[in-house]
């Protein structure tokens, strides 16, 4: 069969009428010629025509055969099926609408999720040849990804073996004009490298990063220009003070470009400005650590594998002379083609959410499958008759599947609307619910649907049509002709069993989802109730630049609303504390001790009571003496049953990973310290880490380098925060990187748990709702099906209660089995979840959550059984038995 065949088929499909007419004309011509011949042989006119038709055979059958040759019968049949199905839906609009709404919900949720996945993971960035861009670094023996120093970057740029061009990037996180600004310090070739041009003014140029500290310029992102600088048409030439240094805005990048990372950026400045803008907050040993990320474009003839080999050799050669911890153990080449690289870890992180959403769709499909099955059963007679009239089973299945697809497609359209709505509303909901000071952290890449989303939607719709349509279609067409013609339909078919399986599966899935919801709710509750051990109210946290520290401190102290100021190397709730091996004099073994440096004001400002001994004095802090205040739990661990005050402990020296100093993570220079006090236990890490197992506080003065300031203020902390921010950006512009009230920080930490609780509640209730309607449908069907039997039982003396009991028993049997299966699945799921989150807020086996989930499902099942069981109880034996 060649292209001629397809050409003719296409013609038959498109010009159906014309081809039919031609066939008619051709056959008429034949019959006329034949009749003419018979007339010439002496027949009369009607006789000749009869003769001709006789010789020809059945005209209609021949036409059918000719049509078969055309091979477009399927299209014609499809047309028939579609018309037939639509007629059916017109008769049962409620059924059709229910199905469409149910599937649309499931599809909509999944499409919304996929749209986000697409935007972050699948859609290539709108830059030159994104698929040749790779971030390059290597893993060190210490298990960290290497970050380049400026010198290393130069070395690599000058003799890199795999890239045709490279850019160096460094992040910058600051505030200006009352807004949070996220930026990249980049080499001057950044924009030409990516092929991104300017909407206004110019982009960064290679000359900008030619000479260190020579080019105080910046380029704004289009969004930042519009939202944070009021779309000022005269922005080019204006100066913005970043960390105390005025940078001239030389241009605005073209719309839609927000950098390479998942968090949209506000500005770019030359990387050669880093020494001014990024005076490292290095703490104690002044060791400048690498911060530069390298992104390169693979040479055109370079395969990924060859590049990897060449770069591995380079990194090994380069790190050969370094201490062992810094030696390369293998290169990392991370694609920069999409916002988030498509890596197994990303998919693994995405999987649980995806699974929950897919399960909702599956439950919706099971529900609809049940409805379709009930409908197909009520059409048994029709189906039987059609089978008896010679329709093939395949033909009927195709017809029933056509119905499913016809229901799935409008569901996809409605689902698309739902997903658009969800995409529109979710960020708003987040912005409305997140603590105000953090709303600027909420940044999304644009989430507009594209061809991939459309294809996903179509595939999901068709898959769900198969899922909910195929089984009922197979089941319904199983009846045999003999039974159908006698009017017996349900003897050998066991639709009841299939429907039960579907319901059990649904109950199991919703039990699984609800138990997960309960776990989420309980974690949220636990986080909310967690006693932090310190007072968040009335405290404002300020992160700032070291160079401007004295001026900021002076400015803060001059404000009457500030009662006192403390400093700490790390503020509680802002990340996990670093550790150092510590040990008591009387015991040889060491334990990892979490530590931080604090000024003496730290304890009173945060309201942390010193339970025994005393706080540091200002003189001790100024001299940074080898003293320590330890937490209760640290005291219990090191000196069980003894008074820790007056004891001293050993601090081991360990090789530090480069960059550790930056976060105040470097251990003290002294090797032993004297305990002068015991403080109450607090939550010093993330809130999910719960109360510390140990904490060692070492003294530092309030103006310590790299410290974060904590100001206790009078009155409302949020109002005070605004006043402080305004006053500081007035007196020391660009000095403050972040300023938050501690209440806000706390709220932001609790937020993910709240969000988790909301989302899981929404998904769980949706699943439960769908399952209930499924269960209700099955039980109603059961009552209808067994009306006669129940009627006979009642006639023989069974009470109404017993009649209702039949339904309730059935309901409990299904629900019990389903919940059991769901609980087992949840056990596995929660183990997995707990191992991934590694937070004490999630128990791997939370019995209360399990009990909650199971109880809700069982109670809901009983509710769903109530109406059908009442109906069973009201069955009148007389009317029932007269029926049929």
């Amino acid at each position, binding site marked *: 069969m060649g292209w*001629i065949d397809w050409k003719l088929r296409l013609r038959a499909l498109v010009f159906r009428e014309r081809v039919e007419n031609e066939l008619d004309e051709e056959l008429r011509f034949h019959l006329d010629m034949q009749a003419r011949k018979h007339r010439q042989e002496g027949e009369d006119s009607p006789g000749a025509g009869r003769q001709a038709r006789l010789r020809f055979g059945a005209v209609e059958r021949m036409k059918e055969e000719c049509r078969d040759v055309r091979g477009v019968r399927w299209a014609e049949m499809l047309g028939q099926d579609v018309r037939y199905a639509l007629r059916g839906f017109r008769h049962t609009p409620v059924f059709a609408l229910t199905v469409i709404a149910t599937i649309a919900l499931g599809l909509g949720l999944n499409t919304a999720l996929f749209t986000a996945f697409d935007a972050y993971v699948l859609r290539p960035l709108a830059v030159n040849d994104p698929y040749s861009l790779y971030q390059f670094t290597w893993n060190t023996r210490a298990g960290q990804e290497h970050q380049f120093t400026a010198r290393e970057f130069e070395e690599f740029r000058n003799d890199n073996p795999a890239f045709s061009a490279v850019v160096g990037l460094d992040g910058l996180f600051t505030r200006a004009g009352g807004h949070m600004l996220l930026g990249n310090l980049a080499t001057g070739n950044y924009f030409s490298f990516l092929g991104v041009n300017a909407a206004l003014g110019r982009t960064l140029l290679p000359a900008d990063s030619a000479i260190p500290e020579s080019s105080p310029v910046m380029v704004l992102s289009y969004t930042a220009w519009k939202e944070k600088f009021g779309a000022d048409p005269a922005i080019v030439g204006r100066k913005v003070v970043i960390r105390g240094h005025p940078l001239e805005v030389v241009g605005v990048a073209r719309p839609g470009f927000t950098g390479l990372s998942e968090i949209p950026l506000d500005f770019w400045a030359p990387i050669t400005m880093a020494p001014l803008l990024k005076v490292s907050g290095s703490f104690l040993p002044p060791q400048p650590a690498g911060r530069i990320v390298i992104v390169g474009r693979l040479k055109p003839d370079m395969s990924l594998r060859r590049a990897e080999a060449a770069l591995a050799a380079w990194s090994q050669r380069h790190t050969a002379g370094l201490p062992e911890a810094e030696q390369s153990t293998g290169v990392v080449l991370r694609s920069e083609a999409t916002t988030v690289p498509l890596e197994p870890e990303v998919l693994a992180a995405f999987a649980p959410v995806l699974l929950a959403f897919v399960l909702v769709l599956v439950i919706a499909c099971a529900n609809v499958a049940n409805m379709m099955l009930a409908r197909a059963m009520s059409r048994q007679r029709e189906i039987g008759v059609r089978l008896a009239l010679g329709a093939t089973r395949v033909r009927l299945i195709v017809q029933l599947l056509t119905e499913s697809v016809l229901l799935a497609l409008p569901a996809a359209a409605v689902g698309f609307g739902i997903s658009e709505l969800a995409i529109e509303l979710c960020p708003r909901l987040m912005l409305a619910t997140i603590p105000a000071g953090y709303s600027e952290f909420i940044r999304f890449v644009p989430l507009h649907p594209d061809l991939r989303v459309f294809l996903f939607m179509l595939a999901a719709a068709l898959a769900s049509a198969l899922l909910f349509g195929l089984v009922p279609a197979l089941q319904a067409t199983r009846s045999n002709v003999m039974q159908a013609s006698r009017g017996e339909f349900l003897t050998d078919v066991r639709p009841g069993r299939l429907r039960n399986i579907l319901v059990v599966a649904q109950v199991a899935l919703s039990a699984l989802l609800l138990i997960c919801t309960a776990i989420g709710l309980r974690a949220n509750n636990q986080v909310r109730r967690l006693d932090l051990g310190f007072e968040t109210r009335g405290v404002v946290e300020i992160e700032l630049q070291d160079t401007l520290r004295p001026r900021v401190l002076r400015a803060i102290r001059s404000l009457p609303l500030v009662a006192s100021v403390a400093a700490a190397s790390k503020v509680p709730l802002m990340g996990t504390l670093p550790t150092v091996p510590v040990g008591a004099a009387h015991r040889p073994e060491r334990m990892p001790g979490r530590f931080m440096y604090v000024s003496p004001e730290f304890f009173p400002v945060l309201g942390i009571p010193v339970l025994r001994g005393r706080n540091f004095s200002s003189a001790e802090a100024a001299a940074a003496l080898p003293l320590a205040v330890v937490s209760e739990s640290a005291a219990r661990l090191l000196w069980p049953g003894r008074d820790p005050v007056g004891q001293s402990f050993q601090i081991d020296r360990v090789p530090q990973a480069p960059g550790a100093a930056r976060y105040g993570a470097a251990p003290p220079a002294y090797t032993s310290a004297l305990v002068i006090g015991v403080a109450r236990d607090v939550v010093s890490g993330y809130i999910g880490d719960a109360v510390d197992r140990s904490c060692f506080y070492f003294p530092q003065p309030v103006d310590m380098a790299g410290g974060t300031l904590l100001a206790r203020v009078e009155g409302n902390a949020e109002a005070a925060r605004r006043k402080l921010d305004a006053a500081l950006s007035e007196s020391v512009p660009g000095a403050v990187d972040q300023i938050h009230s501690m209440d806000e920080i706390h709220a932001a930490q609790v937020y993910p748990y709240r969000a988790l609780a909301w989302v899981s509640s929404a998904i769980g209730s949706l699943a439960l709702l769908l399952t209930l309607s499924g269960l209700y449908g099955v039980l109603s069907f059961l009552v209808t099906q067994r009306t006669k039997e129940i009627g006979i039982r009642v006639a023989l003396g069974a009470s109404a209660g017993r009649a209702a009991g039949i339904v309730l028993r059935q309901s409990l049997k299904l629900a019990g089995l389903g919940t059991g299966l769901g609980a087992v699945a949840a056990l596995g799921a929660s183990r997995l979840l707990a191992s991934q989150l590694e937070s004490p807020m999630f128990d791997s086996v939370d019995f209360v959550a399990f009990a909650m989930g199971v109880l809700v499902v069982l109670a809901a099942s009983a509710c769903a059984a109530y109406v059908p069981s009442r109906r069973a109880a009201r069955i009148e034996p007389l009317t029932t038995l007269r029926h049929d």
Partner: protein
Amino acid sequence: MKPSRLDLLQGTLDLLILRTLQAEPMHGWAISERIQQISRDVLQVNQGSLYPALHRLEHQGWIQAEWGISELGRRARFYQLTAAGRRQLAFEKENWAQLTTAIGRVLDLA
């Protein structure tokens, strides 16, 4: 006794049609007349079944249909052999010859 009218073997109709069209383009009725005439009425083409066969050959690209004017001045659908059809005819003739020789041998020996 009149010679019995032979039912056509599946596939032989195609061969006969192709052979009939070898000389010139013809319409369907003419093809059926010609086959009957030449075979001296031994081969009775069931006239109706000619058309599905013609359409099948057309779809295979061996013959080509075109509307033309018949000898009596009426619009008729004329079929004509394509280059591929000629090759197919040669091939099928060869096949047929081999088949008949083989059957002949079997009959002679039996």
